């Protein structure tokens, strides 16, 4: 796994350390990192739902609705549905805005659902994570802090030409002190 230190354009300019993943809370607040412990057996081939789309702005709504449909079935609260929708929207928007700056390409959203947990991965085959460069599309830098605040665990990887953001949620994911 390779991961850029410090600010980067792909993830809203939030310093995120050197590791492969972060749990919310102290590690994240310190910019520290730990090895992610997302559920075993969650291979791409066994995802419950997968949506592949062209990396275009219109696609983000489809990804958001895909996840909302899953949460409908899980029966989680409206608050959880809204929070998770925001986190997924941020991850997808990152892919759409930054993965293919000079070309077109696709990205995929994978979801694994269990009654009390939901894991969502957003993957693209674009330029990977790079140091933040000021640009009109860089955004406000809130994407990654939002994902970290909403998800129980967020894992970033960029290797072999694939960039992935994987987030784990539970029904009460949002931190009250976030």
């Amino acid at each position: 796994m390779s991961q850029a230190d410090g600010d980067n354009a792909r993830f809203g300019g939030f310093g995120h350390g050197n590791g492969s993943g972060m749990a919310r809370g102290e590690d994240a607040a310190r910019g520290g990192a730990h090895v992610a412990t997302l559920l075993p057996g969650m291979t791409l081939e066994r995802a419950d739902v997968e949506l592949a789309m062209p990396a275009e702005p219109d696609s983000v709504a489809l990804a958001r609705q895909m996840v909302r449909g899953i949460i409908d079935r899980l029966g989680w609260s409206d608050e959880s549905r809204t929070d998770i929708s925001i986190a997924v929207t941020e991850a997808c928007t990152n892919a759409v805005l930054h993965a293919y700056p000079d070309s077109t390409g696709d990205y995929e959203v994978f979801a694994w659902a269990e009654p009390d947990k939901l894991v969502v991965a957003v993957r693209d085959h674009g330029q990977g994570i790079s140091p933040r460069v000021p640009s009109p599309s860089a955004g406000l830098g809130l994407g990654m802090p939002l994902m970290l605040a909403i998800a129980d665990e967020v894992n970033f990887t960029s290797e072999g030409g694939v960039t992935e953001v994987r987030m784990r949620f539970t029904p009460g994911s949002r931190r009250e002190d976030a």
Partner: protein
Amino acid sequence: MSRASAGRLTMRAEDLREPVLERVVAALAARVDLPLDRLSDAQLASSVLIRSANRHAVDGVVRVELDVEDGAVGLSVGPLPTGEGSQMVAEDVPGVGPVLERLVDDWSVEPIDDDTETLRLSIGAGGAA
């Protein structure tokens, strides 16, 4: 306007297929500015489609290609065993008749190979029969 791919859904978990496709189709319908009644028809059609596809899926996985064309939403389900695409459209709901055929503007079956085919539905503002 030519047909433009909007995405490809691959659904393994049977209980998630209907709520996911309903919501995704609604978003697509909004994208092409379908009137509200047709958006509702599109959701109903997707629901019927998934219930039927659950019975006809080749390998326990339902795949739906999504596209937009001329103000209509296109859904292509497959691969299905040859002959079952038409059967899905013609399937009767007791007392109601073939619901899918009534809800969609157009449908077609396109062969993939000798053994499998794809069922494509198009739902636009034109209105059901």
